[in-house]
Each structure stands twice: as C-alpha cells, then as structure tokens.
C-alpha cells in the first residue's frame, strides 16, 4: 500500500518538475520548496549518523584509547557556531584556518603530480612510430600542437599580437572551440539517457505501459 502511494507521490512530483518546462507554477513551487527542506534535513541526519556519531561520539563514550584527542576537532567545529554572535564571530576563523591550511598543503603536491607532471608526461608522445596509421600520426601532431597553441591562449602577461602570440592564441582558441563542440556533441547522449530513465519510471514503474 505505502509502495503504491509512494509511486503516485513520486509520479506527481516528477510531473510537477516537468511542468516547469511549460511555465513556473504552484506544483513546481511546492516540489522545489519541499525538496530543499527534505534534502537539508536529510543532510543533517547523515552528518550526524555517518560522521559525528561513529567518528566522534562513539569513540569518546566508549572511552577508546586516545579518543580525548577528538575533542580538538569537536571544539574547532563548535567554533563555527560563533558566526551567529557578531562579537565573537572571528573565532569561526580557527576551524576554517585548520581546514584551509591542511587542505591546501595536502593538495599542493598532489596537484603538482596529477595536474602538471602527469599531463606533461602525457604530452610527450612520439609523433610517429613504425606501424602507426596516418590518422594517428596526424592526430598526435594535432594534439601536441593544439596543446601548445591553447597554452598560448592562456598567456595573460603578453599581448596577443604578432606571429607567435597572435597567431598562436588564435589557433589556440580554434582548438579549444573544436574541443568544446566535441564535448557538447558527446554530452547529448548522456542527457537523453537521463530522460530515458525518467520515462522508464513514468511509463514502466508507474503506468506499466512498457516493459
């Protein structure tokens, strides 16, 4: 019984969201407000049940060895709440500083490795090797030169004029546009798939018209 009601509720809200395509309307407005409330309520519960309870409350109440150290992040976390009191609001910078400092520090070498060195390594490809077909060779040339040209486009401290910076950045933006066009075209399929999923729900699970 609850399942049937659930199905109808879900179908109602699905249609409510789709009705937005025609016009903003009360049913959409209701769905919009409800989902904001429910999702945030859900996050409160998840944060408590999945983070605070197992990682903070349980170790301390069970008296696990070294659990008292967990009071440090707990106090830091509580300092966030000082934001509500303008006089002491600056205290909320401490937890932020903890997360920012450590986060940036942890991220720095990893970004260097993944975003720079790995990408650089991947750009150093042999343009031709025996047995490579012409389209691969052409592709390699286009890719490496494309990377170079697009990098020129991202030069901020030089005017985009002259043979090197002018032409280079122009080719760069062309390559970038080809990439964007390709990504757009490639994405269409995924977006249609999402709609297929909802149609399967409406026509299959709800109305049982299709298998």
């Amino acid at each position: 019984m609850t399942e049937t009601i659930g199905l109808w509720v879900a179908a109602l809200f699905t249609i409510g969201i789709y009705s937005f395509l025609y016009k903003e309307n009360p049913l959409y407005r209701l769905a919009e407000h409800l989902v904001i409330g429910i999702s945030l309520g859900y996050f409160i519960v998840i944060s408590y049940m999945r983070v605070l309870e197992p990682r903070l409350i349980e170790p301390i109440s069970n008296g696990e060895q070294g659990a008292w150290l967990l009071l440090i992040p707990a106090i830091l976390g509580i300092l966030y709440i000082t934001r509500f009191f303008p006089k002491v609001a600056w205290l909320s910078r401490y937890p932020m500083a903890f997360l920012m400092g450590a986060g940036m520090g942890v991220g720095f070498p990893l970004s260097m490795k993944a975003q720079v060195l790995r990408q650089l390594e991947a750009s150093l490809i042999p343009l031709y090797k025996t047995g490579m077909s012409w389209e691969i060779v052409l592709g390699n040339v286009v890719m490496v030169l494309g990377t170079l040209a697009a990098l020129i486009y991202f030069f901020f401290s030089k005017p985009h004029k002259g043979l090197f910076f002018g032409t280079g950045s122009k080719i760069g933006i062309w390559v970038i546009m080809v990439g964007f066009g390709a990504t757009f075209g490639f994405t269409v399929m995924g977006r249609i798939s999402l709609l297929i999923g909802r149609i399967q729900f409406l026509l299959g699970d709800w109305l049982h018209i299709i298998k």
Partner: protein
Amino acid sequence: MNIWEKMLNLDRRWIFLLIGIACVVPFFTPLGLPILPSEEVISIYDYIEELGPDNAIFVGFDFDPGTAAENQPMGIAVLRHAFSRNIPVFITAVTPMGQGLAAMAIDELTDETRADFFSFVSWSEWSAIRDQGITERAEIEEAWIAEGNLLPERSRGFIFEGRDFAHLGYLPVFNLVILGMSTSIVSQYPTDVAGNSVEEMPMYQEHKSLREIDLAVTNAGSAACTWWIIYGREKIGLPVAFGVTAVMATDYYIYIQSGQIIGQMGGLRGAAEYEVLLLDNDYTSEPGKAFIGMDVQNIAHLLIIFLVILGNIAFFAGGFNKKTKLKGRR
C-alpha cells in the same frame, strides 16, 4: 517579423515537446539498429575474458539513481560476464543509493522470470558444503548438485554467495575505504550487506586485500571513479576500468592514453556495446536495456541535428548573417 525570424525565435516549448515525443515513441516501436563495439569497451571485455575462478574483481556501483539509466546496464553487463565465467566479484558502492541499485542488479540477474538468469544460492543455503571444508569453485558446484539441486532449465548457472560474489555495499568516505582495503578488505567490511561474515568467505580468504584483486570496474556517475585511480591504481597498481556517464567519458580518455585505466564504457552506448559483446559471444540471448535505449538516442540525435539545420537555414535565408550580431558571444 518574417517567417525566418519567427523560426529563429521559435518558442523553446515546441522543442521541449518534440524531444519528449522523440524519447517516448521508440519504446513502442523499436528500431534495433546494429552497434559496433569500440576498442575501449573491447579491452575491458577481453581483460575479463582472461580471468577465471582463481581471480577476483571489484565492481563498484558508484552512482545515484540520477544516472542509473546509463550506469545500471553497465554494472549488469559486467556482472553477467563475471558470473558466467565464475569470477568472484566484490560489489561495493560509493553512495547509499548505489548499494540499493547493486542489489537491484543482482535481483535482475537472478530473476527466474527473465531469460538467461543465474540460479542464486545464498550464503546460508550452502553452509553444509562449506563446513566440509570445500572451497574450490568446481567442487562446491559438484557438491551442491550432489545434494540434489539441479540447475533449472534456461538457467545460465549457479552463483554462490560468498564464493562467486559478495555484496559489500556502501561505506561513507569511500576514498579512505579504498585506501584501507589496500591493506585489508575485512578491516573496512567486516560483514556484507546481509550481515554475513566476510572473513569466512572463501573468496575473501583467497583475496584479502586490493593487492590481490585483478580488476576494479567502477561504474560511476561522478568523479568518485577517480578515487579508484588515485588510491587503487596509483598507490598499489590495481588495474582499473571505468564505466562512466557519456559526459565524463571525454575527460577520462586521458586516463586511457596514460595507461591508468585498461578501458572505459562511456554512457549508454558503452553499456550497449558491452551488451552486444555479451550477445555475440553467447553470454546472453537477448539485448539489454541499454540496447533498447540506443533507439531513443538515434531519434533524439537526429531531431537535434534537424533543429540545428533548420535554425541555420532560417539564419541564412533571413539574411541575419549580414546584419549586426544578434547577441554578443565571446
């Protein structure tokens, strides 16, 4: 306002309506156009084709219902392949909903009303065989049949919970879970979703940590799949394959090129390609959901291209190309 201008400023709602119709019709009148598998998908298929009961793989249902239309068929296809070859599969999930979707995938594969189903033998059902100390896949099946259990007609074989698969389910902060599993799976998952002890499972006894796993296939709708690269591939050299949404697929070509993943299924098409490979190699007798979904894709793509062409005809026929720009774009 002439007709071309009207066409250019066509109310978007007409486009919405057309897309809606294009996506519903094929469900009633399928086209069934052929699909050619691509290299990236074939390489995953071939890799799994090399594995057997002595190996083990991870299959991650690392997505939410939002992208299930794309990811679920991939998960099912890989599971079908592994089940057919008796490769032990550890099933995990990065999101809580992913756990439920994984359970649905297993349900679908073991649903006796469907074609090419697998006969599911739960952990408790074959406990007697386990108690005799039998852990080899072939011997278990022998003993199970000797107990008088016949393989139902049309069934593709038995799958023994704890020997052929373990549904480990969802855990939060999954990147750290992968890190933890690189030393011990059981440290992260003492039990599977049903509460059975993972420690006792023969498949765990033979593969205690990610270092002893031959492949992880992550079917992901978010960047969570890169966790398998960062914490699995980079840290301990675990071979990883991606099943990602079509959108993410272009980004992860980089990983194929750099050799960090062995292959990738991109979107519904990737899933359909895997289904075709399974169909061609007689792992199944009828096409799956992704294959049918591709019909919708055909029509929708044609419709969008038709609209773009229409827009350009109006643009040039109306002489807008000679006028000042309609709206500034970079």
